[in-house]
């Protein structure tokens, strides 16, 4: 009985399947038709991935902009004296505007356009050819315009970091001219060398000395940090430094700024995966772990040395860790990231609290001590801890994956990292010195002593951050 039943059920099912198959084959009777449908499906899958990547990259671009304004503006603004809070914030904000204009006109082309080993050409002048179609060499799944605007946000914050070194004493006009020249002479070539097609240091697009720099350890932090030191030395100390007390006027503002920087840095580092896949996750995790460990490192070192863990120490440590993990973010596993952060926190604390005092330069907000020192450290440690399982960046002619860093068995990479760092240092020193000289002899760099005592807010902008005659 049950056997017959099963047989009947099997027959009916088979008949049904046969009927469906018949109707399907009737609908797509030819192979060409099948191929067209497959191609359409593939296109839809690619479009879906493209949309996902694009959503993350636009979000990342916005996050990186938030790092400059209000992140950096608040961080630096809180560290200066009351009379300079607006002048300091304005430096960050002005760069958002100025660098954006330059980027559209020619800086993007100089950085990422096809060119020689050192600088891009003029092919993408006025953003010609930068549209909806992806540039497969850089990011195959997002519009070239998304890549362009994402990279712009890096070009904005980098000169913004330098401002910490000459805070409270540079003329606004001089700052504007300096920054325009610096973007063209230092940033654009450095970005091209490390990230541009055929750049001298490019790790994946045929560089002579492939340097691993995931999100800008050399391009952003070494160049800005070293330039900051040159600025501090060239401009000289603030009136009254170091005899007069110049404590931060609001660690509260700096605190909010640092927290915004931390969050924005996820766009900076995880966004540098240029897609929304697992590499972005890996970079996100490494970034967060390094920042946390560096906070422990700096505040801990301070606690041991001076008896109290300060809030400013904690947030400075976080920034130092974020700086150091920037070149490594997309190449290292979480535990090495933790270690990189811890080392960076302690090292940058030592640079800021000991080395600066020893040599007596007035790097007012420690742009060199955090970005120059932390960036250099991070770039070198990347050559030690990078592993191909996180990011298979090096391949031989047959497509086999090669070792990335020293610990994985590629000691030569440490040398390449050193070359990358040395080139960044050299370009920053020579370029910044030349620009400072030009601005100095044409319009002058510093405000008058009288204006400096009065403060930048009033003398440069005719405003006060905290208007005292507030009416009821």
């Amino acid at each position, binding site marked *: 009985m049950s056997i017959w039943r099963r047989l009947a059920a099997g027959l009916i099912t088979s008949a049904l399947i046969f009927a469906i198959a018949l109707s399907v084959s009737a609908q797509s009777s030819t192979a060409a038709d099948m191929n067209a449908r497959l191609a359409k499906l593939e296109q839809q899958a690619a479009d879906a991935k493209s949309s996902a990547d694009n959503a993350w990259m636009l979000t990342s671009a916005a996050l990186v902009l938030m790092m400059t304004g209000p992140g950096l503006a608040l961080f630096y603004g809180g560290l200066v004296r009351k009379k300079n809070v607006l002048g300091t914030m304005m430096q960050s904000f002005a760069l958002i505007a100025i660098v954006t204009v330059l980027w559209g006109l020619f800086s993007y082309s100089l950085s990422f356009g096809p060119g020689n080993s050192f600088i891009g050409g003029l092919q993408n002048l006025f953003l010609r050819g930068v549209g909806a179609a992806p540039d497969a060499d850089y990011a195959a799944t997002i519009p070239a315009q998304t890549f362009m605007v994402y990279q712009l946000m890096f070009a904005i914050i980098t000169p913004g970091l330098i401002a910490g070194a000459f805070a409270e004493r540079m003329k606004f006009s001089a700052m504007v001219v300096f920054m325009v020249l610096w973007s063209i002479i230092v940033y654009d070539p450095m970005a091209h060398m490390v990230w541009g097609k055929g750049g001298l240091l490019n790790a994946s697009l045929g560089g002579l000395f492939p340097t691993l720099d995931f999100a800008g350890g050399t391009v952003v932090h070494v160049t800005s940090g070293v330039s900051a030191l040159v600025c501090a030395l060239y401009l000289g100390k603030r009136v009254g430094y*170091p005899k007069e007390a110049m*404590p931060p006027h609001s660690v509260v503002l700096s605190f909010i700024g640092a927290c915004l920087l931390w969050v924005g840095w996820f766009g900076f580092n995880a966004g540098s995966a240029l897609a929304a896949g697992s590499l972005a996750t890996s970079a996100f995790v490494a970034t967060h772990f390094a920042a946390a460990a560096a906070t422990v490192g700096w505040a801990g070192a*301070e606690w041991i*040395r*001076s008896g109290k863990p300060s809030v400013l120490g904690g947030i400075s440590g976080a920034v130092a860790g974020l700086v150091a993990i920037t070149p490594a973010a997309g190449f290292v596993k979480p535990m090495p990231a933790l270690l990189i952060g811890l080392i960076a926190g302690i090292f940058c604390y030592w640079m*800021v*609290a000991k080395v600066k005092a020893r040599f007596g330069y007035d790097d007012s907000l*420690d742009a060199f001590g955090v970005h120059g020192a932390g960036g250099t450290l991070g770039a070198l440690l990347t050559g030690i801890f990078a592993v191909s399982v996180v990011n298979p960046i090096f391949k031989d002619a047959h497509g086999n994956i090669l070792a990335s860093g020293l610990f994985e068995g590629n000691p030569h990479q440490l040398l390449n990292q050193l070359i990358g760092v040395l080139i960044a240092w050299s370009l920053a020193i020579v370029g910044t010195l030349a620009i400072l000289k030009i601005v100095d002899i044409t319009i002058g760099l510093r405000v008058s002593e009288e204006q400096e005592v009065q403060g930048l807010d009033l003398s440069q902008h005719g405003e006060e951050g905290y208007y005292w005659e507030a009416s009821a």
Partner: protein
Amino acid sequence: MMKLEAIIQNSKLDAVKTALHEIGVEGMTVIEVRGHGRQKGHTEVYRGREYSVDLIPKTKIEMVLADALVEKAVQAVLGAARTGKIGDGKIFLSRVDEAIRIRNDERGEGAL
């Protein structure tokens, strides 16, 4: 009429104000000030740089009193502001020649 100026610990403002209200003081002016007497300051450290802070935040209460109320007010401040430690502050008394109410030209103790 006398002016009473009391420089007290910030944390004692509420207690002093209440004590003064209880004995019938009707007006006072309170100012946030910084200064030091014999009390030592403290050091603050920002990124490894030490700053010594010797001007300590205090609260100053000013009031002009009818002669009959002066001693009671002094006792009220002493009672409410004292902790017995260095840094409790000081009271200064001085003569006031005239008081004038802006609203209606009233003069003397009636204007207080």
